[in-house]
């Protein structure tokens, strides 16, 4: 009975939708207008405090800071990706010692704040100055920029190792078995069958990890690296003008949103064969 009834209903033209002022609608409009007010307020604030002199003075600093941020994230994400491979292999290893070591590494770097790790490397390694001088590494570890890159690389390697491991494990066992039935070597299987499928799964987590790194990179300002956040702090401490922070927020938002859209596009393009 119900089937014939829906068929009847389908033949009818859809009723004209009546937009009523429900509570949800009112709440939505109120909240949207609050956002609108906030946006207009920020715009007004930026226009009212528009200061060409300030802009000419600090805009180049912001650009160089942005470049430092991008460089820091790019270097540490790439170096971390390289480092994550042996860690992920170690996590999957059947050797208890190797897997325990890899697990300990991942647990440590995921369980402690990035800021504490950065301090541990930048300030903490100073405790080993004589030893580091003996090996000639002291000049390297004295440098805040290098310490930041080092800490971020170690940190992101732990996260990326988990992404990699999860992605490889998401590919079914049957794929491995089928490949070995076709007499492909382990390396060929990995390169031609497992990784192409695993990378599709890993794409979104990798994108998120890069975004987390961009956001996390703001903390290097505390150890005197003049990235975007560092330049912002410097500009604010000199001018006490709140717009310095607003500009930084806008730049970060645009950067992160761009990256998110890019990841979405890439995923959409790479998984178009899976769409039905």
């Amino acid at each position, binding site marked *: 009975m119900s089937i014939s009834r829906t068929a009847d209903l389908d033949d009818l033209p859809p009723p004209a939708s009546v937009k009523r002022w429900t509570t949800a*609608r009112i709440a*939505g*409009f109120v*909240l949207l207008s609050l956002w609108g007010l906030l946006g207009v307020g920020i715009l007004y604030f930026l226009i009212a405090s528009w200061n060409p002199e300030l802009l000419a003075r600090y805009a180049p600093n912001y650009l160089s800071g942005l470049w430092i941020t991008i460089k820091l994230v790019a270097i540490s994400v790439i170096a971390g990706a390289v480092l994550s491979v042996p860690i992920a292999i170690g996590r999957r290893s059947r050797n208890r010692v190797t897997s325990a070591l890899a697990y300990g590494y991942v647990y440590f770097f995921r*369980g402690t704040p990035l800021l504490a790790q950065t301090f541990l490397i930048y300030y*903490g390694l*100073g405790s080993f100055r004589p030893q580091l001088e003996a090996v000639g590494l002291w000049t390297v570890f004295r440098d805040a920029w290098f310490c930041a890159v080092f800490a971020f690389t170690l940190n992101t390697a732990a996260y990326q190792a988990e992404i990699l491991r999860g992605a490889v494990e998401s590919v079914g066992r049957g794929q491995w078995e089928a490949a070995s039935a076709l007499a492909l070597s382990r390396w060929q299987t990995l390169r031609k069958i497992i990784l192409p499928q695993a990378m599709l799964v890993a794409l979104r987590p990798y994108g998120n990890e890069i975004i987390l790194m*961009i*956001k996390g990179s703001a903390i290097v300002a505390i150890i005197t690296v003049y990235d975007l956040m560092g330049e912002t702090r410097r500009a*604010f401490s000199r001018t006490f003008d709140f717009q310095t922070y607003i500009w930084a927020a806008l730049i970060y938002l645009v950067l992160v949103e761009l990256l998110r859209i890019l990841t979405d596009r890439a995923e959409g393009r790479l998984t178009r064969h899976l769409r039905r």
Partner: protein
Amino acid sequence: MDGILTLLSFGPDGWSDEIARGVLVTVSLALATLPFGLAAGFVIALGKISEEPSLRLAANIYTTIFRGLPELLTLFLVFYGAQIAVQQIVRLFGVSAGIEINAFVAGMVALGAVFSAYASEVFVSAFRAIPAGQYEGAYAVGLSRWQTMRLVILPQLVRLALPGLSNLWLILLKETSLVSVIGLADILRQTGVAARVSKEAFLFFGLACLLYLGLAVLSSFAFSAIERRVSASGPTR
């Protein structure tokens, strides 16, 4: 070795009492942020699954902003922004006074905003995992909307959202370290002071890392206990 033990002792020469107070501050900041973050996250999730497009848009703007901004920047925006705003308001009344915003409160607001943005995503995916039949069934037996939410949906939601929320809690615990930058005497701040005074930076920052690790381990014990309780309260679905 003796020197290190003295440094780590409780008492006038040791730093353990200061650092223990730091642990307390870290934990209480995270615990104080949690209820607000959860409540706000839940409300935002309700906005996101609403049928009303304007409400969805408003909720999405919130998440876009607070998931896109670095946590440290959010903290500074709240800390300095609130300070400037309060000073402006006070000036309206003709009083000029340097007003300091409490670092604890600023940290709570900033971390709570970030937490709620991420938590709303967790709640939304938990809501999506509950089949529509659950609502229909509840309405069919005559429950009101509120009763349906409280008696039928929420118990399932908690179970579905718990893994995601426990992850967010661990992130929150780590992010409290940022508040040390604006002067809150948490683990990282206290160990930093100890490191500067004693010149044993590696020891104290290493200790800070171990303390955070310890808190993470404790939380995962707590979460597996909660998970057991929640899942024992009835068969899944």
